[in-house]
């Protein structure tokens, strides 16, 4: 697959709070929007080039609407804070689209499992599945600590069945999102993004049922394009030499679960 990227000066169209600590930013970025596929990400310069923070920040592509990208991000540190302070018509440098996205499997049932901000890449994916396989069933299992944290789930509807789990029971199932998988059966492909323990749990259940399972990983990144080797993650199984690790930015961020966890 030929991966094509560019650096584009995006223009903020909207930057609005979706809950206490997360925002959705809509950016006019026609070249990247035209190339993007679900599961890919961009590297965003949160400050003017050369100023603090130095490195770009990796963010998944949450949605593509025409010439615009939407990013859904949680404010956790200096970079995301600068993003949160951006206003309409501000411009920012975006590098992308990067990485290998989700592969839409030939399945009857697509089960998307998101934990917290891990829901970000799943909207773009849900829409792409709907388009590619209008007759397949799509279920979103969305997990959060409380209902305040449930992000943008209404955007998935209609067309996607949504099941919710919260740690405190304030909405949906009281418990882990992985527990919702008990209700799923059949010819299933699971796509998951969220905290590592959650994804590991999802992968274990998928393996038990012989479902396909694709996981979207995170790793600290410098270049985002396979040059620095900074974003290494260990592969499952015994691999020698330079094959011991895969690189999230280039080989991923989406991997077959079995490639990472035995």
């Amino acid at each position, binding site marked *: 697959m030929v991966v*094509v*990227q*560019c*650096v584009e000066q995006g223009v903020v169209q909207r930057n609005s709070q979706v809950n206490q600590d997360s925002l959705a930013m809509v950016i006019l970025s026609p070249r990247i929007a035209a190339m993007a596929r679900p599961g890919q990400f961009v590297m965003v*310069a949160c400050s003017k*080039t*050369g100023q*603090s*923070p*130095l*490195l*770009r920040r990796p963010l998944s592509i949450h949605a593509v609407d025409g010439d615009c990208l939407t990013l859904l991000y949680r404010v956790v540190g200096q970079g995301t804070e600068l993003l949160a302070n951006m206003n309409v018509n501000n411009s920012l*440098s975006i*590098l992308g689209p990067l990485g290998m996205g989700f592969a839409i499997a030939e399945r009857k049932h697509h089960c998307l499992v998101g934990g917290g901000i891990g829901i970000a890449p799943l909207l773009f994916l849900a829409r792409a599945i709907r388009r590619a396989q209008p007759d397949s069933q799509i279920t979103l299992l969305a997990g959060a600590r409380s209902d305040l944290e449930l992000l943008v789930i209404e955007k998935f509807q209609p067309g996607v069945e949504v099941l919710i789990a919260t740690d405190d029971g304030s909405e949906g199932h009281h418990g882990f999102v992985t527990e919702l998988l008990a209700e799923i059966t059949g010819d299933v492909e699971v796509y998951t993004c969220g905290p590592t323990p959650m994804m590991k749990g999802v992968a274990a259940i998928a393996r038990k049922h012989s479902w396909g399972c694709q996981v979207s990983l995170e*790793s*600290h*990144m*410098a*270049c*985002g*394009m*396979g*040059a*620095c*080797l*900074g*974003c*290494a*993650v*260990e592969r499952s199984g015994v*691999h*020698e*030499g*330079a*094959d*011991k*690790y895969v690189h999230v930015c*280039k080989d991923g961020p989406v991997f077959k679960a079995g490639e990472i966890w035995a």
Partner: protein
Amino acid sequence: MGIDLSVQIGSLQLKNPIMTASGTFGYGEEFSPFVDCADLGAIVVKGISVTPRPGNPPPRIVETEAGMLNAIGLQNGGIERFIDSKIPMLRELDATVIVNILGDSVEDYAELARRLEPLPEVAGIEVNISCPNVKKGGVAFGTVPEMAARVTRAVKDHSSKTVIVKLSPNVTDITVIARAVAEAGADAVSLINTLIGMAIDVDSRRPKLANVIGGLSGPAIKPVALRMVYQVAQAVNIPVIGIGGITSLNDVLEFLIAGACAVQIGTANFINPAVSSELVLGLEQYLTTHQCSLADLIGSVRV
């Protein structure tokens, strides 16, 4: 006719003095959407060892103020795989390719030079002597003048290509090492490699890098790099290639004025993947506007 940007490094003539730094530019191909590598003075590829190396466990990078720490651990597929799978691609790129080599022993370095010798795609060798000498209890080759000289001689004995020795800044007096490798026959020196640094996650009380320590690069180290380039340019008669935090045309000019006859762009590639070719253009424009030749600029600092 445009301005002449070419520079001579040993027997090698570079189109211009802008190179990319090892480990920050992959094997060139990663940057092909952004840079035509044939436009650059040279690209220096990621360090190659005799046998494949897995590299360090993650996390391998962490951001710091105006810089970053990396502990990639010299991950690479080994010389064999490099020749088989990277050389054909590099041939296509039509770039001047310098191969960065690293080893655990003097013999490793000699072996790498010997293996690269027949390859026309390889224009030069950059010898990374920041690695620990396994046989000598892990003291870095780059910190002991005699060891640095031995590595240099071993590579020169097995290579007719231009040999650049890349110096570590983690030493008391870098001019002593520079002189040692110059006397041992190095065609040029490049500096600096990364400064050794560390960062700790306060919540977990663990180092932020799995390897505990890592190499500091980026704008933060530029003043140290510039000082060392200036000192080494006074100390040796071979070309000096400046590296360390170079991001802007102004940075390039500072290093040239300090005495570097070429520069390498490292961390800045991560922030702006097109920066290296932008700097070639910027330098050309500067020289044109200021009606100044490259030779006028290099080493022109007045103290």
